[in-house]
């Protein structure tokens, strides 16, 4: 797995300066204005992972890797680990920026609030990644994008319906609910990982 992880990291490093500048700009905007950084971070994290699949396809890397010892399994494991690391780093950034952007008078409470924001960010990112990875492994990047639009639309529909149902029953949003999003994301990843492994085990290149 180490080699696959190194390759993915080397590919991320190709555009690292651009990424860092982009993130720095977004963070500054979030700290000094009302700009919300969450969507920006989720997009950044997901696009990063999508780029890696684009590199895989452009070089027919998956077929080559499948001919390496335990290659199929290792490439999936590495991609999941890297996705978690990217998501983790972005969640930490979300927490720090959330805390820094809070008004001075609210600094004490802001710490807890930004942790909640980080949890929601982490949960949404994990949910999204848990869907993206097996879809891309199964369908490739071109078809995968189409399938993804359908899947995300369906998931969004379910989320909106669930939120509306909760609201109708008078349920308020508590900190526990933020934690639930994170746990749901983690559970989705735990389900998604063996699915991706199974897809890659059978896939022909």
């Amino acid at each position, binding site marked *: 797995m180490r080699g696959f992880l190194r390759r993915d990291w080397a590919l991320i490093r*190709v555009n690292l300066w651009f990424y860092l500048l982009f993130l720095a700009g977004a963070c500054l905007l979030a700290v000094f204005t009302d700009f919300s950084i969450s969507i920006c971070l989720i997009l950044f994290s997901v696009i990063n992972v999508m780029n890696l699949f684009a590199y895989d396809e452009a070089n027919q890397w998956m*077929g*080559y890797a499948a001919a390496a010892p335990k290659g199929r399994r290792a490439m999936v494991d590495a991609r999941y680990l890297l996705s978690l690391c990217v998501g983790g780093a972005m969640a930490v950034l979300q927490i720090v920026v959330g805390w820094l952007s809070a008004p001075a008078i609210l600094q004490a409470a802001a710490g807890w609030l930004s942790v909640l924001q980080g949890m929601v960010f982490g949960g949404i990112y994990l949910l999204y990644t848990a869907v993206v990875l097996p879809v891309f492994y199964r369908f490739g990047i071109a078809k995968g994008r189409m399938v993804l639009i359908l899947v995300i639309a369906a998931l969004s529909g379910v989320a909106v319906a669930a939120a509306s149902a909760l609201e109708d029953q008078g349920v308020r949003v508590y900190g526990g609910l933020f934690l639930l999003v994170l746990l749901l994301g983690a559970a989705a990843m735990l389900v998604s990982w063996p699915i991706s492994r199974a897809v890659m085990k059978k896939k022909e290149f």
Partner: protein
Amino acid sequence: MNRAIETVGLTKDYGPFTLGPIDLTLPGGTILGLIGENGAGKSTLIKCLLGIVRPSAGQAKLLGRPAAEALGGVGYVPDECPFPGALKVRQTGGFLSGVFPGWDGALFAEYLKKFDLPGERKIKDLSRGMKMKLTIAAALAHRPRLLILDEATAGLDPVVRDEILDEFLAFVEDEDHAVLISSHITSDLEKLCDYVTYLHQGRITVQGPKDELLERYGKVACTREQLGRIDPAILVGRREGEYGCQALVSDRAALRRGCPDLAVDRCTLEDIMIFTTRGERK
């Protein structure tokens, strides 16, 4: 090593196209050339051997073990460089060391030097020949016992091809090593191979030791009347033109016995390929 590759009844069914059943054996210390027209099934066979596609039936053993267990001892060179163009040449060694258990960084560096590959250059800036040399260096650097190459010399100039073929010859000097190479360039395979397998429409049409095949097969230039006298059992293919006919026979000695008035020449692998594929056309 007795047998580097051994397949029994290996079949891959794609519906409109079926490869096999393929029975193939490659002894250690030898090179097997896989020839055939586009779409004959050469790449599919290689992918079946390496587990990149799943065979529909039959068995494949590499280095005496089931293919999946033997991949550590196999160096694979696909027809395109599989490394991202955005990375530098030396970076490939960095990540491949974690992909192949037997990776030898010093040997990789040695090959880069031998093949004149600049470590700091981005892969996208390399020529096709240099990319292919990089892929071969990567395949050799984890010290495989079996090299499998899929159209690795296609599109390369004769000088680079010759350099690469020399490398394969050096590789099989060790009796424990073997090479399977598929190519359209039959002249390369004539120089290089000990054994030849010719695939036509997914099936093995001709197979055997190269020298024996080239000794046994023969090409005849004759009239239509003379063509009619050739034993159909040894007639592989024929081409009839306005001014005469050409035929490929699978047994020169038998032809000499049956038609002593016909002059029979030695043939090339390309003749065998063309007459088998297009030999029935007039």
